[in-house]
Each structure stands twice: as C-alpha cells, then as structure tokens.
C-alpha cells in the first residue's frame, strides 16, 4: 500500500493566524488527488483520528480541486509562540501525515 509521501507532491503545515495551523496536501495529478479523496484517509474524521482530537477542533476542511489539494485547519492548543509551544510557525505539524497508507 503506497504512503502519502509517494502520492503527494507537497505535504505541509503552517500557521493560519496565531491560533490555527493549516495543512495542505497537494497532488501532482487529478488521479492521485481523487484516489486519496476517495480513500477517505484524509477525511475530516480521519484527520481527527490521526491527531487524536475532537472533530470540532478542525475549523475547516476543503477539497480544492483546482490545485489537486486537500486542505484542513485545526485550532492550536495555545496561541503560536506561547511558552510551552515549540513549533511557532506550525511548520512540522504535518509529520504524522507523511506515512499515512493509502488503499
């Protein structure tokens, strides 16, 4: 079973404002994009399971077909750069997505 790393062109996370982190998974082709969308491995529910969060903590989840991209945004535990937060830019939050297996 291929992993997201093999199917996606870009897997990234980044601050969207000071209290949210947004994730972009962008595919090189419409086929790869559709395969992952249809597999459900990055659905709102699947993302909540991966990060062990309540679905309400996901503030937005969209399929952006023009860019062959799946995009979702979550609330942080505390605002970026607070004491106790290490990833001020949110740029490593995508880590757990890289090895997600895609049926």
């Amino acid at each position, binding site marked *: 079973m291929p992993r997201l790393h093999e199917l996606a062109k870009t897997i990234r996370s980044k601050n969207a404002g000071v209290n949210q982190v947004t994730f972009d998974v962008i595919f090189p082709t419409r086929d790869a994009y559709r395969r992952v969308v249809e597999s459900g491995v990055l659905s709102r529910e699947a993302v909540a399971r991966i990060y062990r969060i309540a679905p309400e903590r996901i503030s937005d989840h969209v399929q952006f077909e023009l860019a062959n991209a799946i995009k979702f945004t979550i609330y942080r535990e505390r605002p*970026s750069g607070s*004491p106790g937060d290490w990833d001020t830019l949110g740029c490593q939050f995508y880590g*757990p997505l890289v090895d997600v297996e895609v049926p």
Partner: protein
Amino acid sequence: MAGTRRTMRIMISTGHLGTAPSGADSFAAAIATNPDYLVADGGSSDPGPVYLGNNSVLGQFVEDELELFLTASRARGIPLIIGSAGDSGSNHGVDETVRQLREIAARHRIPKFRIGWFYSEVPRGVIAARLASGERIPGLGGFPELTMEEAERATRIVAVAGVEPFIKLLDAGCDVIVGGRCGDVCFTAAPCIRAGYPPALAYHMGKMIECASLVAEPFMGKEAIIGTISDEDIVITAYHPGQRVTVASAAGHSMYERETPFFEHTLGGVLDMRECRYEEVDERSTRITGARFVPDDPPTVKLEGARKVGERYMGIAAIRDPHVIRHLDAAIEWSRSASARTFRDVPYELHYHVFGRDGVLKDLEPRRDVVPHEVCIVVEGLAQTETVAHKLVDFATRMFFLARIPGSKGSSGLAACTKQTMRSSPGFVWNVNHTMTVRDPLELFPTHVAEAGV
C-alpha cells in the same frame, strides 16, 4: 488593443526581510529589467509574540538586505516599499529601519531622496474609548471578545494597515517607504491601486508575491519574483533559472498560510479567489484572472497584541537509560513536584519539551506511546525576575540528573545535562487577536515624511 495595454511590474526577493540574504543572481537578473517598484515584507505575526512584545528583531541579515535594496532602488530610481518593518511593525521596528536606511544612504553617499514612514501602534486610550462607548471588539481564531483588562495587559498592540498609508506616502512623493504593521498583500497592492488597476487584481498580486519565490517551484526561498499587473490579469514570473511559476505552484500558494484557499481578509475588504483561473504563459510565468474584491462597510482592522509572561531560561537534559525512558512521565513528575516544593512562594511556569517523544506536536502526537532509545528534554521556565527564572530552570533540569525512579540501576546521574542553563528571550503570549471597525482607514496610521541621503 494590444498596443494600448498598460502594465505595472513589482519585484520582490524576500518574504521575510533579513532572515537570510536575497539570492544575488536572481536579484540582479530581476532588477536589471527595471521593475516599477521594489517591495519587501519586513515581518508578520508568524514568528510569534516575542518580537512585538520585546521590540526585538528575528533576522540577522536585515542590514545586508536593506543595503542591497536601497542601493539598487536609488541607482535605478525604482521606489522601495517595505511593509511590517522590524518583524512586528512596532514603532521601534519602523524607527530602527528608517535609521538603518539613513545610515546606509550616508555611507554610500546616495543623493537626497524622500523617505516616508507610518506607525501602526494603537494607543490604549483608543481601545478604552471604544469599549467605554459600548462597542464590541470581537476575537479572531477562537479568541473571546476583548476586555479592557486584557487590552491593558498587552505590552504593545499594533493594528494591521491596508493600502491607504502607503498610497498617502506615495502621493507625498516618497521614494522609499517604511511601513508599520500592514497586511502582507498591501505593500504590493498599494502602488497598483494608486495607479488605477483593479483592486481585486492588485490584492491578488500582493497575495501571490508576498513570500517571493515560495510562489514558484521547486521550493526555494529568497529568490526574486516579478508580478506584472494589467487591467485584465496578473502574471507572476520567477527569476531564478531553476524555478518556474506554474499553475500548480501559483494555485498552491494562493492557499498558503490561510484557513481557506478562497478568501483573504484585509483592511477594506475580502479578496475572493473562488473563480480564479490560472494559465502558464511561458517557461517561467503563470497568468491569473478572476479574483474579486468585496469591500467592507465599515472597514475592519485587525489588532495584534502581546502580553509578557515573564523572564525565561532554558535547560537541556538528555536521557539514554531505557528504564528511565520507560518511566519518563515519572521523571518529569519528579522534576515538576520538586520544583513546586522548592519554588512554592513565587509565581512561575515550567514546560517540558520531550524531543524523541512529543516535543514538536505535544497533545497532537499520535506516536506518543512509542518508546524511543534516547530522548532530549528541554526545560523551559519563566518567572518574574531573571534570577528566579535562572534558578528555577537550573533546578528543574538538575532534577532529571537526580530523578528518583523506582527500580533504576543507575546511581551516578539519570540524565546527561552538562551544558549551562541558557538565557532565552522573555516569554510572551498573543493576547490580542481581534478586529475593530474604523471610520477612516488612515485613522490609526500616522504618516511622516523626511529627507534622507546626502
């Protein structure tokens, strides 16, 4: 019609002034085409609240980049516009940037030019007056409504400017403009809107080029990009020979750093990108059409404020004993409870970043239960004075060396923590992340004009 088509070209080589030098070759190639404006993003809220709260600057190459930009700008007569100066756009950040530019001008014997700047800090009295009149100041991103108590706890508050102060300074004949905190799209959109180009295209071009070469592929930072606006479209072009702006890279960048790929809020309205069309026009350029701009009435300004938590130190403890690693939570609890006993009379905060387990993701880490063979714990501690913070963090770190773990076979120290406890910046939190209506988009942003050069 082709003969009457007018365009304006805007060049950018950095999405964050001073973090590293701009790529010299792509900068030279792009500036040689004599763009109409050279722009740079001096900062944002991205690096966290410390820079606003502490009036400090993140990048170590600010002076180098300002020198490159100012000398190129003045040698060719290309106006230079810098937004969100000094990382946070605080008054100090603006003043320091203006001072550096003046010094560079004097050093290079640059002939006299007009420099303009504007401030973005919001006096507390403005917020107090609004709240006293019963106005609500709603929070963004899950923040509750602003109260006077919370506003007063902020060390510093800035408002995020739109295009208007830049346009006012351009109207005043400024050759070089240093902006306080502003929307990332605005230092590019301002000259375009002033010249009469459609605001929707102007803001969208601002969005596309705000991070310079991050709009192109493959991934490269700090390389030059030129955006070209006409009355019908925008075209984004890469100037590093190894980079191209493609449909995929441009569409991908339109969703970068925002909650949704379709909307960008700025002072004055909302950029709607739902109907955008992208088309590659040559080997390194993509043409974009279809953005719409929906003005706000009344205009709404974003406020950003940082509250100081305390002075901060950091310590590092490294653990290789598998038995201790299997009982890591007990070791952390030992450090935490011993600190609570020893520092029971003073307010403090302690945070344990456990690298090798969940140091980056904390509560979001799905693999927290995997037992690594080695972990590094960064102890982050804050207190009201440097002395207490130093003592606290040194103690909490040493408690890993002295941890009492049942069944442990080690008796010479349960953590390697030989490096000295390190002073860090004071700790701050974002405590203002709100929006407020304004009657006039210039009312919070006083402008100034002076002469510089020799």
